[in-house]
């Protein structure tokens, strides 16, 4: 990589090696009509170099979680309680300038809509330069050279540095965004639905690219998507989110072989496998709950096939008591009354 010297990446107050630790994180949207709890007390840990997947339906709070980690929540969203620790340092306590330096150097993000994530009136190269100059002392020429390197890294001709965003195809734009995310060699890259807006063939290519880059550069990934099948192939560990809570959390292999939570089971059955024999698909009946007024007790109970009035005792618990995330077997956590 040409030209740039990166300063020591470890933050001064780092205490542990765990990259990200979310402790009982609660994020609310404060509206005049009341508070809507988008993320309700989740715990998640990301270690260096691992790929953690966060799966769930639209509106379950996964993007909000990502924004909270990057500390780019936009009002009316705010972190109500809980901690977001980066290598042991609480991010919510950082000042504005410290946060500015933290962003992108340590954690970067790949947005879903690459179509609109690039400034339409600036050249691609200039947008790279902007970012580098905001964090490092570097001349424009060196920054542009490095931008060219990054573009080549993701498989784009380096002469495209002079192009405007509208002159690139959708796939190229998404790869540019990924290149930008890697520019400062962060330790964690959050990817929020990076391939959803692309067609299947391009999707495959991009995922392959991400995998190759991850192996070469060794950054951790928080991969957010509603498509569980991608995670099963790609992630090391997976957490399933529903209505603002994590309902199941384990390694990808375990999840594939032994999904426990009824929602996870439903998700697994709702897409056809890319390879293998054709099976019957089922959907999950009902719709996600309104987070302004979530169901009492287990939030999934209105849609759960195992929640029946006949099983009186169980039913009573499912409708009044919120299940807690418990370790059912080694490294496999589930929040479900069926497993207590």
């Amino acid at each position, binding site marked *: 990589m040409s030209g740039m010297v990166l300063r020591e990446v470890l933050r001064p107050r780092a205490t542990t090696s765990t990259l990200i630790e979310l402790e009982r994180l609660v994020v609310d949207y404060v509206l005049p009509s009341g508070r809507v709890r988008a993320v309700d007390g989740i715990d998640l840990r990301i270690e260096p170099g691992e790929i953690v997947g966060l799966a769930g339906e639209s509106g379950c709070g996964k993007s909000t979680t990502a924004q909270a980690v990057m500390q780019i929540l936009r009002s009316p969203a705010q972190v109500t309680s809980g901690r977001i620790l980066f290598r042991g340092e609480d991010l919510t306590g950082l000042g504005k300038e410290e946060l500015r330096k*933290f962003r992108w150097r340590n954690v970067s*993000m790949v947005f879903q809509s690459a179509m609109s994530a690039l400034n339409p009136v600036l050249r691609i190269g200039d947008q790279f330069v902007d970012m580098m100059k905001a964090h490092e002392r570097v001349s424009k020429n060196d920054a542009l050279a490095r931008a060219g390197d990054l573009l080549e890294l993701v498989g784009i001709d380096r002469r495209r540095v002079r192009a*405007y965003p509208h002159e690139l195809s959708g796939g190229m734009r998404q790869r540019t965004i990924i290149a930008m995310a890697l520019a400062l060699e962060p330790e964690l890259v959050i990817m929020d639905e990076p391939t959803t807006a692309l067609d299947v063939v391009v999707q495959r290519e991009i995922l392959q690219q991400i995998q190759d880059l991850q192996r070469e550069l060794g950054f951790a990934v928080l991969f957010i998507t509603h498509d569980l099948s991608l995670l099963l192939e790609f992630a090391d560990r997976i957490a399933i989110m529903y209505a603002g809570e994590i309902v199941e959390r384990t390694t990808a292999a375990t999840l594939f072989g032994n999904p426990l939570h009824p929602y996870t089971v439903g998700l697994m059955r709702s897409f056809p496998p890319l390879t293998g024999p054709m099976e019957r698909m089922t959907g999950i009946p009902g719709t996600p709950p309104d987070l302004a007024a979530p169901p009492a007790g287990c939030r999934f109970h209105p849609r759960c096939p195992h929640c029946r009035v006949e099983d009186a005792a169980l039913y009573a618990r499912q409708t009044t008591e919120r299940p807690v995330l418990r370790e059912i077997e080694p490294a496999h956590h589930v929040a479900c009354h069926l497993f207590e």
Partner: protein
Amino acid sequence: MRFLLRRLGFYAIALWGAITLNFLLPRLAPGSPLDGLMSRLSPSQLAANPHMVDNLRAYLGVQKQPLLPAYWGYLKQVFSGDFGISTSNFPTPVSEIVGRTLPYSIALVGVGFVLAFLLGTGIGMIAAWRRGGIVDSIATPALISFGAFPAFFTALLAVYFLGLKAGWFPIQHAYGTGITPGPNWTYAKSAFHHGVLPVLIIVFVFAGGWLLNMRNVMINTVEEDYIALANAKGLRDRRVMTMYAGRNAILPPLTGFASQFGAAVGGLVFIEFVFSYPGVGLTLQQAALGSDYPLTQALLLVFSVCVLVANLIMDLLYVVLDPRVRTA
């Protein structure tokens, strides 16, 4: 490039439409415009040029001439720059009067409007970026209220308070009495001094509109994904506000510049009237009062052409600022 050609074509057609409307107006007006004119001409003028009445009759179409040949004749006249003789400034040709007064108006509008645009969009950008902040709570309502005041009222207020009472600025004409216009320092200083107040009025009247326009677009632009990404990348706040949000948000107001220019022209007439500033606005008003039809018609055309030219300049600027149009 295709974009510009299309715009040019549009302007050419609009210009043709304006010329045609100009041709039709006296012929459509109820009553005979000529009678009003006749009553204002002095006997000596009539005696001096006995053919003038016939010429005017032909010019205004009071004689029942066949329409198309008259139209063709009119077009030829317009494109050769012959707008006839001004009746209220007899025997000065109209084109000479226009040539004398147009530069002053262009100076006024040029400086004033550009300043208003820069000030308005600049404050609008800052106001939207920090909503509810000091700039937003004070400057926004203040400039908008000023903008809603009728231009001539604001002008009169300025004349009274700043001109008469405070005596800071002269309140009439474009330069002091006894000074000859030309490339000399005395004239330049005097012209500048006389121009401050009118330009100030223009800025006050129009900055508010730009401010609101820019502010509204900025508020929507701020929600865009590339702003979120720019913030996430750790860019400095001011840079995101100007190069990311502002650079994009300025595009819609820029297209609105063209339509605002029409309103600016209206304001110009009032301001020149109040300040007795010898530009085309005052000339139009005097000409209208004196039923000097050759002059008023010519001026109407001049105004329309100015609007078109302003539009064209804006289009050029737009092509420079928005790369997406260049490849379209």
